[in-house]
């Protein structure tokens, strides 16, 4: 619980107006309209005009998907080290400090136990705002522990993904987190347990090429950028014009990767329904209405 402070209660997704700093407007990348942040927060960070899905904070995401007060955080104490003593234009240490300061979180993923409808799940929520949601040792270890604990406690896994890939600042230690998390997925799967991956904007590269695409069911939010290589790299390598909508959720639905593209307002309902079918002790089938 430490992460969200003492007074946090996820009683409702809607937010009281007085909690929001006034006078904040954003330009919607979807339609170019100027949107009031208040309106956005009340609409689950979805543009009221064009349905563009803005990023959600971890607290908002947890509030969106889980039952009130059902979230308990796991492994919040893990901190990134600087094993390569990485220094570029700025050092990794400085980057970490800056991202911890601006996000209020120690790294790019929060993991925990929570209830989604009647289902006790293991939930991971990635945060693009923290170093592009990149996966270094801490993200890899926390995701692995999440999946391992889910296997031990026979819980379904739900991971809300948002990541630019493996974290460059930890070099090969980051790359190996792809193998480590995938190994945990293998054991969870062998135990006959379900895993639902929710891909949000953007999910790419090393995370995409590991646990993000290993879901038994893979869902994405509308318009999310999803892919392996970046569009610029592809254009430079192949000298080809990229097709319209390339690497969007809708493109990947058409090309058969995704099970569904789901609007944020329906996400929890869809997850509950899927878990009803997938969860080990699935809820009893209710009697049909007369």
């Amino acid at each position: 619980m430490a992460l969200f402070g003492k007074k946090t209660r996820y009683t409702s997704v809607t937010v009281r107006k007085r909690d929001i700093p006034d006078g904040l407007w954003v330009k919607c990348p979807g339609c170019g309209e100027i949107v009031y942040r208040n309106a956005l927060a009340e609409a689950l960070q979805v543009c009221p005009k064009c349905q563009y899905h803005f990023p959600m904070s971890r607290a908002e995401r947890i509030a969106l998907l889980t039952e009130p007060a059902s979230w308990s955080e796991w492994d919040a104490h893990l901190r990134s080290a600087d094993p390569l003593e990485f220094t570029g234009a700025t050092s990794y240490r400085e980057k970490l400090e800056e991202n911890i300061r601006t996000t209020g979180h120690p790294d790019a993923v929060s993991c925990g136990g929570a209830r989604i409808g009647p289902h006790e799940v293991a939930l991971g929520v990635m945060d693009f705002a923290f170093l592009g949601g990149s996966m270094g040792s801490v993200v890899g270890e926390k995701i692995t522990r999440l999946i391992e604990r889910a296997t031990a406690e026979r819980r379904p896994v739900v991971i809300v993904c948002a990541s630019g890939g493996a974290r460059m600042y930890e070099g090969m230690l980051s790359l190996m987190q792809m193998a480590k998390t995938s190994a945990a997925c293998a054991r969870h799967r062998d135990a006959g347990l379900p895993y639902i991956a929710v891909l949000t904007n953007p999910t790419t590269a090393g995370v995409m090429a590991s646990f993000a695409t290993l879901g038994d069911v893979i869902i994405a939010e509308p318009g999310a950028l999803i892919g392996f290589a970046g569009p610029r790299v592809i254009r430079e390598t192949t000298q080809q014009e990229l097709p319209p909508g390339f690497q969007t959720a809708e493109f990947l639905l058409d090309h058969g990767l995704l099970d569904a593209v789901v609007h944020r307002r329906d996400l929890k309902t869809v997850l509950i329904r899927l878990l009803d079918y997938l969860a080990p002790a699935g809820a009893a089938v209710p009697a049909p209405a007369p």
Partner: protein
Amino acid sequence: MPSTYVLPFEKPIAELEQKLRELHRFSEEQDIDVSGEIRRIEEKIRELRRKIYSELTPWQQVQVARHPQRPYTRDYIGAMMREFVELHGDRRFGDDAAMVGGFATIGSHRVMVIGTQKGRDTKSNVRCHFGCALPEGYRKALRLMRLAARFGRPIVTLIDTPGAYPGIESEERHIAEAIAVNLREMFTLPVPIVVAVIGEGGSGGALGIGVGDRILILEHAYYSVISPEGCAAILWKDRAYADRAAAVLKLTAADLRRFGLVDEVVPEPEGGAHAAPAMAATLLAAAITRALDDLVRVPSAELLDARYRKFRQMGIWIEGAADAVPPGPRDADPAAGA
């Protein structure tokens, strides 16, 4: 096959070799015995090569790993193994020339060998995308690995790729998913897997056939989360800083050994594998055979457990105090409440 492609830092060696050739010609034409001088220069070349190759910078290592005359996967299969039966296709979409596979025999072991393959000329490089595999390449690899597992054959993978192919068709056929499934499934194959990075270990495209019980890397190969050029473009907005990027990424065989990410660094002949390909193959074959000799004796359940534990312990982090919270705002978003 003496190397004719000269890396910038190999120039002093090439100059001496040129001098040596001239001396040979002179001696033939004039019928004068200069064998003393020839021996002296040959000794000097050996000396110089030893010195240069013992002091390679990380960026120079990368250049050696990319040397166009370095032995590639097919060269190693040809030199280390016998009775190779190549198998093609993923039974889904196509056959990827950048991913080679088939049964082969090494020492006393009948194995499945799989590896990424670079081309030697424009034509072959067009076919195999300079060693960058497509989704069907990774799926072909998995098909062959499962085939090996069904019949109890150990698997040997050889890695030499700049990375998975970054193209429209790769994305349309889900390269990320193909790699991810390989990562997961390689943890379930109940036969020994020996992985050898023989040249370039380009990020996820390399790891896609890189899960195993023994991870070997050739002395001058590299293995990196991102190419030095890509890293330089991010850090200094200029690919020309690749030399600095190569140093900060800690991508050399020695670095990887230090971080516990590879089990063994396989020595290369003096002057790199391209200077003496046959010798390089002998050294690699010995390391692979040794690993197989050990691993075939391990019961499969133990093998799978050890493989899991091996990758499970990778990573370096700090176990902070149980309820330490970082400084700064608790949460920048309104839903956290006030």
